[in-house]
């Protein structure tokens, strides 16, 4: 197993290298530079020239790439932000990644807590009202985008209401994140009431879509597993239906779920733009998107690389979990 991990990590280096190279070239290939502003925001040409010189944007592309790699590998320095003059990319990531990660973790935990039991129940009560209801809710969960779900939840829970003569104060507040650095282990928050108050709505918005996928996959997988011969053997031994499902069926049906959990994990941990915008959460998601419009090359590269690393680690983790779930899978 160790050899396998080493091999995987080794091969991830060329992957990340080519990722960096591709992004590096592509972002410079699209028209427009970091300092091309139009209209009243436009800078005088001399200023632009100085800025470009300062950031070595006039050097040949290959030299810029090599310099970038040198800083990256030798000093883990992802460079300065072109847009936010007082911050480096490392700063941005250090400040925003933990928050995105926290949101992501809570959302994922929620998704698993709702999704897996829902999938199990739907599978066991296949083709009954329970199954149809669960599947229906799942489809709704997947189909309603965060742009709709988020404001909807905000309206219900985060605003005061006057209904039928009664005045309801908002239950969950928004527009902040309820946790401030320093974080435990670098990214875990203090799980106090403050934290949960602010986390619940955005986590729910983000989580419902995820839980729907997880539920559907769990259901499909479990349906297949229940038809296997060894389940019949388990029943023939006189085990209760509950024991059959929990002890025999569950572990076998988790493999497809784990497969999507990997990339899901990576995506959700590095931040989601829409949810963060709606709930005004200072996460990394915003930077993924805005940096491209800003032509903020180092930030683009930094976020892409971060995502790449997250995916590599997530996929490796998934493969290791496979081996734990299914002893027939053995890597050498």
């Amino acid at each position: 197993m160790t050899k396998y991990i080493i091999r995987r990590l080794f091969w991830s280096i060329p992957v990340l290298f080519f990722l960096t190279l591709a992004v590096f070239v592509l972002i410079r290939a699209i028209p427009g530079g970091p300092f091309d502003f139009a209209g009243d925001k436009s800078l005088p040409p001399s200023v632009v020239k100085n800025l470009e010189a300062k950031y070595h944007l006039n050097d040949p592309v290959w030299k810029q790439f090599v310099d970038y790699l040198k800083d990256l590998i030798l000093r883990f320095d992802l460079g300065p932000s072109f847009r936010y003059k007082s911050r480096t990319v490392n700063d941005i990531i250090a400040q925003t990644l933990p928050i995105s990660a926290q949101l992501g973790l809570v959302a994922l935990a929620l998704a698993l807590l709702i999704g897996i039991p829902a999938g199990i129940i739907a599978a066991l009560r296949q083709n009954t009202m329970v199954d149809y209801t669960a599947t229906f809710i799942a489809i709704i969960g997947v189909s309603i985008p965060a742009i709709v779900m988020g404001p909807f939840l905000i309206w219900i829970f985060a605003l005061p209401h006057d209904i039928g003569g009664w005045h309801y104060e908002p239950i969950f507040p928004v527009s902040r994140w309820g946790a401030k650095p320093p974080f435990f282990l670098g990214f875990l928050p203090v799980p106090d009431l403050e934290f949960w108050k602010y986390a619940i709505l955005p986590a729910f918005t983000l989580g419902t879509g995820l839980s729907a996928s997880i539920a559907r996959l769990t259901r499909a997988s479990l349906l297949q597993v229940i038809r296997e011969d060894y389940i019949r053997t388990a029943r023939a031994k006189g085990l209760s239906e509950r024991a059959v499902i929990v002890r025999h069926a569950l572990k076998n049906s988790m493999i497809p779920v784990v497969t999507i959990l990997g990339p899901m994990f990576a995506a959700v941990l590095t931040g989601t733009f829409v949810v963060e915008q709606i709930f005004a959460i200072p996460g990394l998601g915003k930077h993924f998107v805005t940096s491209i419009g800003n032509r903020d090359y180092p930030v683009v590269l930094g976020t892409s690389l971060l995502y790449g690393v997250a995916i590599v680690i997530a996929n490796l983790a998934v493969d290791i979990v496979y081996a734990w779930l299914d002893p027939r899978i053995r890597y050498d």
Partner: protein
Amino acid sequence: MGRLLEVKGLRTQFFTQDGVVHAVNGISYHVDEGETLGIVGESGCGKTVNVLSIMRLIPQPPGKIVGGEAWFDGRDLLKISEEEMRQVRGNRISMIFQDPMTSLNPVLTIEQQVSEALMLHLGMDRKQARKRSIELLEMVGIPEAASRIDDYPHQFSGGMRQRVMIAMGLSCNPQLLIADEPTTALDVTIQAQILELVKQLKREIGMAVIWITHDLGVVAGLADRVNVMYAGYIIESGPVKDIYGDPRHPYTIGLLRSVPRLDESVKEKLIPIEGLPPDLIDPPPGCPFAPRCQYQIEKCLKENPPLETVARGHMVACWVDVKRKGA
């Protein structure tokens, strides 16, 4: 010898998109204590559905036991509660299945799977169950049982896996062991090992066995009595020497003639049973074997013959007396 299992008029159907599959059509038979009953037939004849019905392991839907009784230990298994049935399964009546590759859970160790029944039915704790499991594995001939008990099924060969299944089946000392084609997927030398093992265990433990197979050779060496099934009916039943030495049903005769035998001279051309297997969804009236039968008379196409005694303990469902026809 007392009567252990008495099945009366068992009827099981499957409700599918294509129609109702008449899998088992009112069969009646019995198993006495300590005897081995062989049930012979081809795919679709109902031999497996028959025993799954008795064990109440038919998935409902789409299956349904629509009639009959199965008397075991003073109770009708088809009528008792699910809770009571679970106490019978794996405990008083055990079942082992055909494909040892897929019948064991790949993600659980052998110990977990063998100890389960012991802890459930005999109330053992983990340690006791483990000790007994090792004894059981040794009894079925698994070498180095004490260390191999923590292995997973895929680390065993097919023959070894089937021995594990037998160990699981015998763990709670059942009175009846139902074996559904347990050696069909195994090599012939491994099959010989398993058959020897079963014979030996039978002598030691004295349980009754229902052995289901399509292999006429296996049944000949193992069974005391034989039921031949076709299209959900028992069409012939009797002591094993009678069935092979004096078969009365055209299907049984046809089957015995169409199988090559290792000990006969080779120039005998095989005489196949012409035609196709029966349609279980829309069975034509009359005897289900009539369309393929060379002794067919007009009555066969109209009425389905009942099982009748033709000699001591030997019953046949046929309108024609094949002995007079000169088989």
